[in-house]
């Protein structure tokens, strides 16, 4: 096992012995030294998502939080180049001033962590690759990364990609970095594609608790040429009083009925096309005799924020599961979940957020088997205090694990960066 070492350098260390390199050269110097000494380090940003993933097996901690700031923002070129640990809220603020946004709709994991908003840094977010509600339409975080710079496990500064959308020069390492939980590279710079913000939005609510009907709606919504940019199902689970009360408290809107299960879909754009799309969709979904209501922009925007803040699971002390499956198997999963766990569905039927009671860790095994059988996967995003890691929190098969080990080796041969954060051996 590695031991903590003293780095002979000017890099700032706080009273907890956390290293704070201030630029990529200092990150490189630090990692080069750690590499020489065979001493691994945990890599953190501002710690907003450090609860996700396994605990790293490392003696040191390196915070990249001082590597922050906007380097180059070109609204007309649709890109922003930022230092890796720039807080997402800062990026969103400057984009918003130019009526642009991060189209992948970052999730605010602060609410499930401790009930407070904290979107964390862009490097942390990219390392997790968890896109918000708009994912099924615009792609994931990885689809919006144009390039990056960072330091590999040997201390070498490397880069990939650039600032242009069309680029097939060399391997597309940006994709590999996305979702790698800091195990390949300590990121120092990221270039993201940005997109124009839509003028307005409206959300249509369809009250239903019939799973076949719900999935029929999801299917029709994703088959329509009147594009939607979000579709969720929020069940009312009266048998789970805690969830039910939280749910009804979170989704309190003038035009939304309480204590009823519902599907909600969002249409964005200019006023005229929103109305046109909603009218088209009402016909395609045959909603004439359905119980529906509409949230105007003033309700629609906060509604989707609450979805993407995971507010129904605010401060959860239970295990929180993120399961992604092909939507065709969704109604089967709903039937299982109905009497077992509280949950909601995003991404037009593909993404399930499931809360598993702390005393039911073995249930995670059942869910994982279901995810595999349905052609998907699950991740335990937040663990309860009783979780003993008997069931791995990520899903991986043998061949992919073998290849992952080889890829890890090629970036970080001595396993200096976040070892064990995802899988043992990686």
């Amino acid at each position: 096992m590695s031991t903590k070492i003293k780095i002979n350098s000017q890099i700032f260390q706080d009273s907890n012995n956390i290293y704070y390199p201030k630029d990529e050269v200092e990150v490189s110097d630090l990692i080069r030294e750690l590499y020489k000494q065979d001493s691994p380090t945990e890599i953190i940003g501002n710690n907003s998502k450090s609860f996700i993933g396994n605990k790293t097996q490392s003696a040191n901690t390196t915070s990249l939080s001082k590597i922050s700031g906007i380097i180059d923002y070109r609204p007309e070129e649709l890109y922003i180049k930022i230092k890796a640990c720039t807080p997402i809220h800062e990026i969103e603020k400057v984009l918003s001033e130019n009526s642009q946004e991060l189209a992948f709709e970052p999730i605010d994991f602060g609410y499930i962590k401790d009930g407070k908003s904290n979107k964390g840094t862009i490097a942390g977010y990219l390392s997790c690759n968890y896109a918000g509600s708009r994912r099924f339409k615009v792609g994931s975080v990885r689809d919006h990364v144009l390039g990056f710079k960072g330091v590999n496990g040997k201390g070498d500064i490397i880069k990939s990609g650039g600032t242009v959308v069309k680029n097939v020069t060399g391997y597309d390492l940006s994709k590999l970095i996305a979702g790698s939980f800091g195990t390949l590279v300590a990121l120092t710079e990221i270039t993201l594609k940005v997109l124009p913000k839509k003028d307005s939005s409206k959300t249509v609510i369809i009250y239903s608790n019939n799973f076949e009907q719900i999935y029929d709606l999801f299917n029709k919504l994703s088959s329509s040429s009147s594009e939607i940019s979000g579709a969720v199902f929020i069940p009312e689970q009266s048998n789970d009083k805690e969830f039910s009360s939280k749910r009804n408290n979170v989704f309190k809107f003038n035009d939304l009925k309480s204590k009823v299960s519902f599907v909600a879909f969002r249409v964005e754009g200019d006023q005229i096309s929103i109305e046109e799309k909603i009218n088209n969709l009402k016909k395609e979904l045959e909603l004439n005799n359905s119980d529906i209501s509409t949230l105007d922009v003033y309700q629609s925007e906060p509604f989707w924020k609450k979805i993407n803040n995971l507010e129904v699971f605010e401060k959860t002390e239970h295990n929180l599961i993120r399961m992604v499956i092909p939507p065709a198997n969704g109604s089967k999963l709903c039937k299982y979940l109905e009497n077992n766990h509280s949950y909601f569905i995003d991404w037009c039927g593909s993404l399930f957020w499931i809360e598993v009671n702390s005393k039911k860790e073995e249930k995670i095994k059942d869910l994982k088997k279901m995810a595999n059988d349905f052609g998907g996967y699950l991740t335990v995003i937040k663990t309860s205090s009783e979780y003993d890691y008997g069931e791995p929190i990520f899903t991986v098969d043998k061949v992919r694990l073998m290849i992952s080990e080889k890829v890890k080796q090629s970036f970080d041969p001595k396993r200096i960066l976040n070892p064990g954060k995802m899988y043992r051996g990686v």
Partner: protein
Amino acid sequence: MSELALPKIDSSILNRKTEIVKNLSKLTDKENVLSEADELRPYETDALSVYTQTPLAVVLPENTEEVSEILKYCHSENIKVVPRGAGTGLSGGALPLQDAILLGLGKFNKILEIDYENKCVVTQPGVTNLGITHAVQNKGFYYAPDPSSQLACSIGGNVAENSGGVHSLKYGTTTNNILGVQMVMMDGTICRFGGKSFDQEGYDLMGLICGSEGLLGVVTEVTVKILKTPEVVRAALIGFPSIKEGGDAASEIISSGIVPAGMEIMDKALIEATDNFSKAGYPRDAELLLIVELDGTTSEVNELIKKVEAICKKNHCSSLKLSNSEKERLSFWAGRKAAFPACGAMAPDYYCMDGSIPRGKLAEALLEIKKLSEKYELPVANCFHAGDGNLHPLIMFDGNDKEQLRKTEEFGSEILKTCVRLGGVITGEHGVGIEKRELMCEMFNDNDIQQQLSIKKSLDEKNLLNPGKVYPILRKCAEEGRVHVHKNKDKFPDLPRF
């Protein structure tokens, strides 16, 4: 073109040809192994036809297990393998090697499953790009990436090259439109990345494979996302009296918040060439022609057209025509789509470049290309995917004239260096292949290239899969002096000899 440096030929492999062919014939149907000179000839080149090489043998396996067995055999016998899809690549990525097996995926030509509920198609890699759209268009769906060779290019090749097309600004390239792949590694291991669900957890190995130009594995199955065909598609054909005004209009369209489905620019030389060739009715007095395509619902498109019209008028467009029917829209595209053959009709040969630049640098890039055209005394016509910054200068020359050949290569290389200088890259969609291999040094330093080579080494330790492509061959870099030496240090002190 000029003599090409390729990996050192292993003469022991050449000497064992008969034995190798015999062994390969045990791993697939005998008919699927080609080894006679006349059988090999069609496989000597891909669409970068200036380079030719005769492979040791061509193998055309019929299923994943056969691919696995063939690769396992080659791996154990140290035989190099060059994978090939439809052979439409423009950068020489499927150029054979004399001591390598050419592994053709042409027999993988079936669509395996159309799954409308999950909005995806599972297909073998030899199916053409357009074949996928044809299979789902009766239900109003399509596959979004549309490289200009979509009639012939295979989806497996698209994955290898991460192909884009005119619609990639709005709909992305191949990497953004696939959900999963099945792949065989060089040692024969069969693996699956992704499937029908979004964003496979863990390392995005599918993202790594996509665009890896056949260096990391052989794709044997692809799951692609399909999209609903937009309700309305309309195009605008806009002429401008100067490059600057047209370029500014294109930039302003993007910065105003419009994301066109496609946006193409052609310069005067190309307007004339294509109009002569296809009689597209383009405004011949214009210095620059802009084609903007918008899609969506009826009122959405009408609204966007109004905005585009206003921006173009503000930037002093000299003509503006809107498509009022599908037929008219296609006629707007007819000239643009004939850009390559039109240049082919003007000179014995043309050489198509493929750099990307920031959109706002278009005028600067075109001006530079014009200067270079005068310097090298070679005519050039330019088309530009203005939406995503992908520039295709077409240099016209006579391939029989050796001096012109040399000048064309130098001219092309200077154009790509200009792209890098302007903040762009050396290849937007055609791939590096053998064509731009040595220019990788312009974009990447030792560390960057070393990291990519480490990945290659980790997945193909013996460097048997498509060697000599994408990464500079040290010998050539040094001999031709194309490595730029930084602070007098050798650029690749510890570069593996890949």
